[in-house]
């Protein structure tokens, strides 16, 4: 049935994480409804908005990192291109920051 989607484990894990996040946000929202507030982002946001903005920024960070990985390897004279886990960690940190202070 879902063969045509050619699933791989990392992608499955990724989407399960997203689904869990949405479920978690829903539960959190029911337990304690969010309020609109203004952080360092230019617009007033709710928790859901911040999650979205955070994820979007995280995606852009990872993309930029992948794009520039070759350059990084040149500048720092590394044997191989740096691992994507670095940018992943950075993006998670940014996501957390946006969620807390955005």
């Amino acid at each position, binding site marked *: 049935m879902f063969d045509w989607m050619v699933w791989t484990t990392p992608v499955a894990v990724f989407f399960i994480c997203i689904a869990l996040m949405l479920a978690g946000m829903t539960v959190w929202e029911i337990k304690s409804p969010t309020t609109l507030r203004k952080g360092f982002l230019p617009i007033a946001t709710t928790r*859901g908005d911040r999650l979205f903005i955070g994820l979007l920024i995280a995606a852009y960070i990872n993309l930029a990192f992948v794009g520039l990985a070759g350059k990084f390897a040149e500048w720092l004279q590394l044997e191989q291109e740096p691992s994507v886990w670095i940018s992943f960690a950075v993006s998670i940190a940014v996501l957390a920051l946006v969620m807390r202070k955005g």
Partner: protein
Amino acid sequence: MNDNRTLPRTLFLVVYIVFALLPIYWMINMSFKTNEEILSSFTFFPQHFTWDNYKTIFTDASWYSGYINSLIIVAINMTISICVALPAAYAFSRYSFLGDKHLFFWLLTNRMTPPAVFLLPFFQLYTTLGLMDTHIAVALAHLVFNVPLAVWILEGFMSGVPREIDETAYIDGYSFPRFFLTIFLPLIKAGVGVAAFFCFMFSWVELLLARTLTSVDAKPIVATMTRTVSAAGMDWATLAAAGVLTIVPGAIVIWFVRHYIAKGFAMGRV
């Protein structure tokens, strides 16, 4: 206002209108010429006025079946879009619920995503389902941008209906389906018309998905029109006639919703 102020504006307007109409006129002009006339002489009016190009389209199966296929696709798509969009638009315009804003935004993103992004998976999906080269495949594929659009337009119209009407009806003991069908729907029929019109438009003209998902049996007119090169070179006259005919259904629909088109565009919803 004195005249020397308005004159440049009128002039500008006239120039723009000429610019707007001339290309359309040229196509209509051409559709009444023969290919020989098009290629040999250069005239503002057809010298040998002919209906032959239209006759070709109405008698040649490879042409007219394109129109029929397009109409079937659009009809299926329009029906599904409006039917699922109506309740959703009502929910968005009347209630607030968990995640409503995000859901609305998500719908909007689908309207804005280039169909090219979905091209590959659609091809695989419909091959797997065995729906390649069927009307239903294209109609379903077009839902991706038409459903959000319909929800968006309908929500705008529904928000213009005061909520007191709903409340009064419920107090009077109307059930939701009965209220919706007998009271609410007639109030927003203009909105339904506009939404249907735009669903019609966008499904009617969509080229990329329609071309990729069909080959022979369900090939819509837009895809047919991209291959008019015959052995004798481009068949300009027939192409022009086909173009004119493609505008016609839209023009008929416009006539019915003419008062609301500007509103639909002006809300920036298209």
